[in-house]
């Protein structure tokens, strides 16, 4: 038997926008200038476009991944002035006048970045979807200079989820590169 409890009216998706602007007007687009992997790009973007969507949807730099869009997984990690950030939590318009580095810009003229090579050698991935974020995050972590031990690496890489569970190999790969650095 079915009992009818009543009629509910619901707003189906919570929207931070509603209430802020008068109804049915869209935010204006402006020219946003982004420096990505050394090249300057001009885009016509509304302020609501995240850096992640600007990269993926407008510049087709799809190496940066979307795993949650909520700052909870690290798949979207890029480097802004050498610091790792979650690009899904950042609006594109906020990152003008910065140097943005994505996975596509990591390899130099002489080939792959040492971390990229180490990830391949150590099989530090499976599906590869978290991989660009892991690698960018590792570059950022090394730049920060706080990781001294294996446990430090594990802790400081914990903002990047790998659902495939490649963690042991990710740590091996990073450790190898860090030793190379300290030997250099």
């Amino acid at each position, binding site marked *: 038997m*079915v*009992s*009818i*409890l*009543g*009629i*509910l*009216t*619901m*707003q*189906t*998706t919570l929207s931070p*926008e*509603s209430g802020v602007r008068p109804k*049915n007007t*869209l935010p204006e687009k402006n020219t946003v200038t982004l420096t990505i992997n050394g090249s300057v790009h001009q885009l016509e973007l509304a302020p*609501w476009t995240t850096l992640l*969507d600007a990269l*993926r*949807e407008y510049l087709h730099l799809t*190496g940066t*991944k*979307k*795993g*949650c*869009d*909520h700052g*909870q*997984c690290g798949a979207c990690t890029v480097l802004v002035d050498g610091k790792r950030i979650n690009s899904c939590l950042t609006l594109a318009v906020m990152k003008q006048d910065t140097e943005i580095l994505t*996975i596509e810009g990591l390899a130099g003229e002489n080939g*792959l970045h040492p971390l*990229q090579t180490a*990830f*391949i*050698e150590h*099989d530090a*991935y*499976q*599906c*590869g*979807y*978290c*991989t660009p974020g892991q*690698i960018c995050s590792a570059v950022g972590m090394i730049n920060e200079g706080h990781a001294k031990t294996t446990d430090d*690496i*594990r*802790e400081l*890489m*914990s*903002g*990047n*989820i*790998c*659902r*495939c*569970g*490649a*963690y042991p190999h*990710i*740590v091996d790969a990073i450790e190898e590169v860090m030793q190379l650095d300290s030997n250099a």
Partner: protein
Amino acid sequence: MITYVGKPVNRVDGVAKVTGKAKYAAEYKVPDLVHGWVISSEIAKGTITRIQTDEALQLPGVIQVFTHENRPDLAWFDLSYKDQDAPPGSPFRPLRDAEIKFSGQPIALVVAETLELARYAASLIRVEYEVENHETEFEAHLSRARDPKLGLASLLKPPPPKPRGNFDEAFAAAPVQVSGEYVHSAEHHNPMEMFASTVVYEKNDKLTIYDKTQGAQNSQLYVSQVFGLSFKDVRVISSYIGGAFGSGLRPQYQLFLAVLAARELRRSVRVSLTRQQMFTFGHRPVTIQDIKLGASEDGTITAIRHDAFAETSRFEDYTEIVVNWSGMLYPIPNSKLTYKLVPLDVFTPLDMRAPGGVTGVPALECAIDELAFKLGIDPVELRLKNYTDRDMDADLPYSSKELRECFRQGAERFGWANRNPQPRSTRRGHTLIGWGMATGIWDATQGPARAEAVLTVNGKLRVSSATADIGTGTYTIMTQIAADTLGMPIADVLFKLGDSDMPLAPIEGGSWTAATVGSAVKVACEELGKKLFKMARKMKNSPFARANLDDVLFADAHIRLKSDPSVAVSLREIVDQNGGHAVSETSTSTPNFLKLRKYARSAHSAAFVEVEVDEDFGTVRVTRAVTAVAGGRILNPKTARSQILGGMVWGISKALEEESVLDHQFGRFMNHSLAEYHVPVNADIQNLDVIFVDETDTIVNPLGVKGLGEIGIVAMPAAIANAVFHATGKRIRNLPITLDKLL
């Protein structure tokens, strides 16, 4: 020539993955693409009485809102909606009518010029419902449990075997008994990549679809049937898949919605789900199991009863093999096994890594540990005492079973001999240390598949089959097999997959791809080799004029005489003399059923685990673990190790972290984000070790492989729960073992 198989070859798709060049379903650049945003039901049961879309539609750039009210007519019969992995029942049809069957049901698709606009427009849509009482509480409805309906799927997932001996009498007579109720929570796959489909609308209404799926041809079949299209007008491509773990075995609803919109609008459409929406389709079902074991004083197990109750939806009977494992692992003369379903107002559950196996085996293996403790026998010894080389229910010998070696090598590597059997006997600082172990088992199956092998005009080998690589290493191992079969350098071999235009392959799941597609690749390359040899023999002044196929071998891209390898013809030469045409061969490989039916076939494992339990906080950490695997021949120890490590991480996740929590007031999974649905992060994973014991199997399939996708997870949860018992003296039978259960 064996040059690559068995070697730790780096992934052939490695560079693509570390440079960001690997393209996943939502990443294809398509001109004039529009974006869809799915609106999900807020209620779990009832009827939509009104959907107000005007406000959204008035926005410039919003193209259409598709709902049940304006959708086109589609296929009528349930059969058209059945995919290769559909359980018995009536498949869910998005936008079919106003009826709501589960919380999060897709009820509308907003299509707009940009992603941001579609998302915003979705927020302006108002939905009114007539709400009905939903039932999502599993334990409250156990009394409704019933036998599953049988269907085609029951062939692959047989119901429990008939009772053996007389359980009731044997159990009553057993001097040592244990019994317990084991609960495993619902879980969601949550691959890192969200489900997405990019539908490219082409000339003459043809569709090319980039889809996240574990079977391009499964998606092709579904789209063709539902939308009444011919196969040749629907091409599905899935070159890279950002994890799936079973969630891609059935086409997900974004595929349906994206195709519907593309056809109606005659435009290319992309639909990606949100992480929240990743909790609105198939999942591992919550399952309750009762186990009773009876044994004699010397540890011989004489009786088992294993009853399982699992959740399913109201519209399909999803089943798993949960209770059948005891007959495959232990020679217990008296057994009674049952499996029943409780239909609820949720979406149909779906195969998730080691479906059924990692539900049933951990419960069984905890019960065995309880028995070992009660008997005062070492857990490894008890398992050795009750060892069998036969599957009791099928009454067949194993084609190979090196589980004994797994116990021996795993225990040795772990240092198991130093274990003090007494719970709470070891401390480290303020933590209790526990050691536990368990057995794992998973089927080693093979299906039919096809593959094409082509020697291209520039002398390279190109092999293809419509299978998938969800991170398992399919690309790499198939390349290795192909290179060795035709004696080619691996750099000259290209293996392609994930395209419905390629030769037929089944959905990629159940750890059967290495065997299934690997055999097809081998056969196709062998057939191509025969053809090339025939061509070489016909060449002018051929050195093989009087030779037979048996007299030659394929090495370094040449065909060589075995008796004198310096007598050779290069493959390049053969193709050069073929009038500028490539040489190709397409072959089918089918399992040798006549041979296989005489054997039981499984991969086995043993996991040994150390946990550290903080007595004050109830927190558990797996500080180290060793898994020894008997998985037949290992094609690539590097990718194989990754598979097992990944499985072990999943085992830790299942034992300690993962759980989809339903709020029964709303009938909705509440922790639908990666912040609240806990999976291990890097710091949760300490020292994991993998051993592959030697196992030669000439029966299981021509390659002697058993598949490694699931075996790594199966033994871990029980090993961890048993280690927690050893550490604390507390037996937690309800996974995950969160701190509240230990305090």
